[in-house]
């Protein structure tokens, strides 16, 4: 089912928790809703689910305006951050609960519950209580409960935030697999950019209630719409550098980063990702102040003028603190922003 959000706004007092949001989601897509804490992700999700009434704007599921339809009639499945399983009921009773409330016969409900439990691989725990399951298993029960009524839309509010790092990765792949298997339009809220990029078809990045960019992960990573998105995506974080442009030459302090750039003279903010540097005999000299081994990569802390710059190199490179390395920036990897923080171009 397609989802269309038009001018969606939610105001609490004089705070716009969500501010005139416009979004189209294609049938069967998984969209990651990404942003820092308090940016309005949950509010958006709750409006989609019908638990929160929008102050303004409309929501369409397919061609149908669902803005004033109550949650139970919206054909949505919702998974909460804390799973919200009913602790006194068995896994089976939890999963059949939405069906029984809709008047499905007990035997039929159990059959359907078992079917969906097999999809999420919890069918062997049907008689346990939620407290007797691990976090990842509870999470899958919550997904099963959301999916059992065959909703048109699946909404997940930070479903992985209670899991440990390893389980998070495993479970997010699991969510992706289930989503592909059931082919359900899914919105997945997270504040973890890596999580969002790894499983989403598209990512919507929000800041203070305003949608910043809505794109395919790779495109967004390489072409962030503005400085906020550039800063939000990627680990280690992007380097924010002040640059000057004169006659097409981009300089940071004394260092020349690029020549022949088609850019008006002036002072700009620029962003360069740590992995955008490559070792180059003719490059800029960087004194290594500090270094950190991360496994595959070696993260060097250096300085460009007064600003600290993080440079990522292969871990087999021989460097030590105090060494000087020479490096350049890959073509097209200097992101230049204007005074309103919008991306002007990549050089």
């Amino acid at each position: 089912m397609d989802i269309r959000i038009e001018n969606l706004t939610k105001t609490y007092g004089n705070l716009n928790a969500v501010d005139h949001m416009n979004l189209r989601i294609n049938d069967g897509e998984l969209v990651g809703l990404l942003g820092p804490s308090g940016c309005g992700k949950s509010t958006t999700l709750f409006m989609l689910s019908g638990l929160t009434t929008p102050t303004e704007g409309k929501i369409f599921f397919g061609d149908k305006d669902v803005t004033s339809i109550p949650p139970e009639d919206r054909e949505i499945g919702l998974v909460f951050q804390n799973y919200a399983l009913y602790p006194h009921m068995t896994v089976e009773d939890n999963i059949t609960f939405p069906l029984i409330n809709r008047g499905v016969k007990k035997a039929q409900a159990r059959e359907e519950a078992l079917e969906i439990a097999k999809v999420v691989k919890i069918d062997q725990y049907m008689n346990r209580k939620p407290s007797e399951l691990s976090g990842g298993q509870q999470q899958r029960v919550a997904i099963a409960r959301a999916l059992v009524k065959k909703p048109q839309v699946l909404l997940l509010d930070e479903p992985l935030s209670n899991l440990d790092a390893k389980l998070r990765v495993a479970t997010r792949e699991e969510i992706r697999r289930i989503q592909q298997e059931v082919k359900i339009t899914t919105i997945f809220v997270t504040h973890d950019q890596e999580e969002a990029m790894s499983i989403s078809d598209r990512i919507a990045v929000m800041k203070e209630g305003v949608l910043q960019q809505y794109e395919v992960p790779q495109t967004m990573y390489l072409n962030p719409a503005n400085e906020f998105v550039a800063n939000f995506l990627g680990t280690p974080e992007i380097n924010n550098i002040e640059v000057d442009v004169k006659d097409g030459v981009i300089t940071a302090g004394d260092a020349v980063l690029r020549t022949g750039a088609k850019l008006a003279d002036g002072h700009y903010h620029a962003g360069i990702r740590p992995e955008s540097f490559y070792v180059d005999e003719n490059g800029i000299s960087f004194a290594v102040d500090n270094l950190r081994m991360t496994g595959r990569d070696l993260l060097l802390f250096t300085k460009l003028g007064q600003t600290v710059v993080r440079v990522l190199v292969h871990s087999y490179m021989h460097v030590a603190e105090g060494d000087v390395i020479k490096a350049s920036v890959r073509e097209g990897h200097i992101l230049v922003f204007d005074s309103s923080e919008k991306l002007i171009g990549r050089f």
Partner: protein
Amino acid sequence: MSQNRKVGNIIATILKYAVLIFGAVFTILPFVWMISSSLKTPTELVQIPPSLFPETPQWSNYQEAWKAAPFARYFVNTLIVTFCTTCGVLVTTVLSAFAFSRLNFPGKKTVFSLFLATLMIPGEMLIITNYETIINLKWIDSYKAMIIPWISSAFYIYLLTRFFMQVPESLYLAAKVDKCSDFKYMIKIMVPMNKQAIFSIAILNIISSWNAFLWPLLVTNSQEMRVLSNGLVRFQTEAGSSTELIMAASCMLVMPIIIIYLFLRKYIIEGVTRSGLKG
């Protein structure tokens, strides 16, 4: 060193049990004394030194006591009053606690504060005003008079509201999405999740209702309406010196409470509510 610790642990355990046994003996002794006295002959009862256990248990004391006064009637009356007040209390408590903890209505905070404020009114004052009301309603000497004033308790409502408030809102929202009405949510989710608290309230109410003395004494005057506690005192003045019969009657009075307590105890002690929630 570990040897020392072991010895220390053992001593601590012994001390702990010694204190517990001491406490237990002190609580249980009068009780044992009551039971044993109820099974003695009148001569055994006054014998010096007193014996802890009767030579041959005089079970006939119970029969005699049961017949000496209309205890069956008292018993039924007490049962009716206890049952009705407890059901009433549970219904009003669950409904109000749910309203205070989950529903939004204008003046909720004010009403809740008023409920709390009534907790500060001394019981004796309530008895006087309630008594006047009962007189005006001409309810004297009826079950209504014994039951109606006790079918709701601000304290229990406060207690249960606290428990209900600890249930995360997300469960409510999840239930909403699952097409569960407010009432159904209360019955199917809130009540079973808080069953320990509700059982505790039931037991506390059963005990206080079973043992209630002053109020039933005030509002009843005929023998048919008398409850056990009043009946027992009456019997005490009538039976006078037959201590063994009084003891037998006392045993009959407390036995149901003890049985109920033993029966429901596991629900109270079952432990902190299990949670299906993380974080």
